[in-house]
């Protein structure tokens, strides 16, 4: 018995033998070469997500079809000569002696989606209509995202009074439902392409700003932010290399999903008769023009194709966008696909 410490000594342990012993497996690290960027990695994860890829394929197809639907000319020069749509989307085919078409013709080989109340070819209109909905969506999202990121970063990173004022402003914006605000603006300014963009952009950035600000508040407390400061990094580098990249993924997901929301919003205004001019080949406006057919069609039959195809186009686009949004969300969450066995042992 003793009160003296250290009487138990470990001897005979030879660390060199452990280091020199035969390897348990012939496993060696296999990644080599330049560092793959995290966006490349996210993309490879995204590619493995079949739902998201399906969504991406649908959305790209719709975008390409919309672009190729009719020739595009800028200042008299044709930049896009292809015309996929068989007829002019605005032409009343009943007035055209070469075409056999009347109002509310049911789908046939000549008119795959039938014709509408003014004997226009629905297939051509739907192909062409994507131009309005989708482009308004993209323009609105890029505008609001830019403003939202700038405002949100300022509020989140600098905090204090700046943050307080911006957040109270956002509270005011959030007090109104987004669609109602857009509706009021369009009703006041009249419905055309750019007032629609303005209506959805003017307050649409608020969501991104608040989301990013919250993310930044939590990310800027992370230890790697302090580690970056300890290395001697400037504020700018800390924000753009460490804080924003870690705070941005939810914002990107939100932006993707917002694309769908804006398309629905544009369609909703169109359906309410407040959007683009009546007769425009925009999906929501088309639905509005034909809403009467939902109740009773001429001769007691309901021309289902008149509302089904524009509605289906909206549905397909928004659903695909949501699938992409979910896919992006999963792809950015780098840790999600790490299985326990993947961890290197040490």
């Amino acid at each position, binding site marked *: *018995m*003793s*009160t*003296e*410490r250290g*009487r*138990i000594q470990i001897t005979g342990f030879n660390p060199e033998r452990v280091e020199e012993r035969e390897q348990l497996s012939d496993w*060696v*690290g*296999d*990644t*080599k*070469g*330049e*560092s*793959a960027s*995290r966006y490349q*990695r996210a993309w490879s994860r995204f590619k493995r997500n079949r739902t998201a890829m399906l969504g991406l394929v649908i959305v790209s197809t719709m975008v390409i079809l919309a672009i190729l639907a009719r020739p595009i000319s800028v200042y008299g020069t044709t930049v896009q000569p292809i015309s996929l749509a068989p007829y002019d989307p605005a032409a009343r085919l009943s007035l055209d002696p070469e075409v056999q078409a009347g109002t509310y013709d049911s789908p046939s080989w000549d008119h795959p989606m039938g014709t509408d109340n003014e004997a226009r070819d629905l297939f051509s209109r739907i192909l062409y209509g994507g131009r309005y909905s989708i482009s308004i969506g993209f323009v609105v999202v890029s505008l609001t995202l830019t403003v939202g990121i700038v405002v949100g970063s300022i509020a989140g990173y600098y905090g204090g009074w700046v943050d307080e004022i911006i957040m109270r402003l956002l509270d005011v914006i959030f007090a109104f439902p987004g669609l109602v605000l857009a509706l009021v603006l369009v009703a006041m300014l009249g419905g055309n392409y750019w007032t629609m963009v303005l209506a959805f952009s003017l307050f649409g950035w608020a969501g991104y700003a608040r989301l990013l600000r919250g993310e930044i508040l939590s990310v800027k407390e*992370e*230890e*790697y932010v*302090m*580690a*970056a*400061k*300890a*290395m*001697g*990094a*400037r504020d700018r*580098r800390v924000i753009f*290399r*460490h804080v924003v*990249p*870690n705070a941005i993924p939810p914002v990107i997901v939100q932006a993707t999903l917002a694309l769908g929301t804006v398309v629905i919003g544009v369609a909703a205004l169109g359906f309410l008769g407040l959007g683009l001019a009546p007769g425009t080949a925009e999906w929501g406006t088309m639905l509005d023009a034909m809403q009467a057919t939902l109740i009773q069609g001429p001769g007691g039959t309901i021309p289902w194709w008149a509302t089904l195809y524009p509605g289906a186009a909206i549905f397909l686009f928004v659903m695909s966008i949501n699938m992409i949004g979910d896919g992006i969300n999963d792809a950015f969450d*780098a*840790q999600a696909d*790490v299985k326990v066995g*993947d*961890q*290197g*042992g*040490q």
Partner: protein
Amino acid sequence: MSQRTEEPILRVEGLKKYYRANEGFIENLLGRTQWVKAVDGVDFELYPGETLGIVGESGCGKSSLGRAMFRLVEPTEGEVYYRPPPESEYADEAEVELTSLSSSRMRDMRKDLQFIFQDPFSSMNPKMTVGDIIGEPLDIHGIASGAERQERIYELLEIVGLNSSHANRFPHEFSGGQRQRIGIARSLAVDPEIIICDEPVSALDVSVQAQILNLLEDLQEEFNLSYIFIAHDLSVVEHISDRVGVMYLGEIAELGTTEDVYNPPYHPYSEALLSAIPEPDPLWEGDRILLSGTVPSPLDPPSGCRFHTRCPRVIPPESFELSTENWRSVLNFKLRLQGAESLEAVTALEADGDEVRDPSTMNRTEIEALVREEFDLPNEFADPRVEDELATIIDSLTEENLEEATTHFEDVFSSPCETDTPEQVPTGDTHKIACHLYDEAYHRGPVGVDGDTGAPADD
């Protein structure tokens, strides 16, 4: 080890870091700000090529000390002098005072002063590859780019025992030990002179701890680094440190070479800490020193010696004949009384659950018995004067006059440990202890270099 003749590479003087405890507009307006005194006046020196261990229990301010030193948090007060060694890029500057540097100068200076973080899981940006993490300091200070940068990253990975093929992976693909190696590689990238290791092995399991510690030692030899090694594990600190500082509640209680600190004479706090090191020997009979009470709040640290509320070797008042053990009991009684709002709070805290009685219904004898039992006071003190004073206090208690009891206690029983802040007393060439026990002025005695307790010096 004899007194160092060379100049210290880093000198910390009176460093303080207070955190605001309440953040609120109204409180600030009313001036009711409370400060958490995380680091409260710390002085020490770091010599080139050595490892200075800083130990202490959690919440004693050791991490705050490390961060305040290199201005990862701005220190409240005090100076940190850095003397760049000849191999440093700043060698032509004699001495740099870090706390007064402009932030851009400080950023440049970080090339020499690096940090290893405790948690290898949160101290790396999860969105960056290991190559970019290690390469970042190279980018920041413009040291290398392109192929040279890639080369340097591979080299650093090899230095810390990883493979250059790891450069393209993400931190979450590594184990804790490997990540800590990455953290070390990152701090080595700029070829620093001083590295603060803030509990670099606490998050790792024991077998990996040894690997990392050995790696740190090898690197120190290879690159002539100076470490400040913050940890709570005494065995780890003993293994790696040349000198050790023991921290308690934001102050350094004891500072000396590892041998000095791990052998008598001890600061009573270090002694208690050391006794808590687990011993594998089943036949070991050493006593663990169990400290009474909990660590006091750094919001309102105790007066005098901060350890007096828990110290097992607290100095008894001179006017009484009291053994240290009995004085500890009496002092516990006194401290409890100071914070108590009712008689019940004084006596009932540790009473048996089923027998808790309202003390106000008890008579004096019962209260006295309860107090003696609660605070482990002997049935009769050897010194009759102690008995007399205690009787007066218990009389006041019976009348439920807590205030009077507290004041009387204050007037009669008072130890230098409660009133005087201890200075750092040298107990050898390389050893300083902040304790009145070792201060000649208190005549209680040094407890001798051989570790004897109690033998009073000439009075």
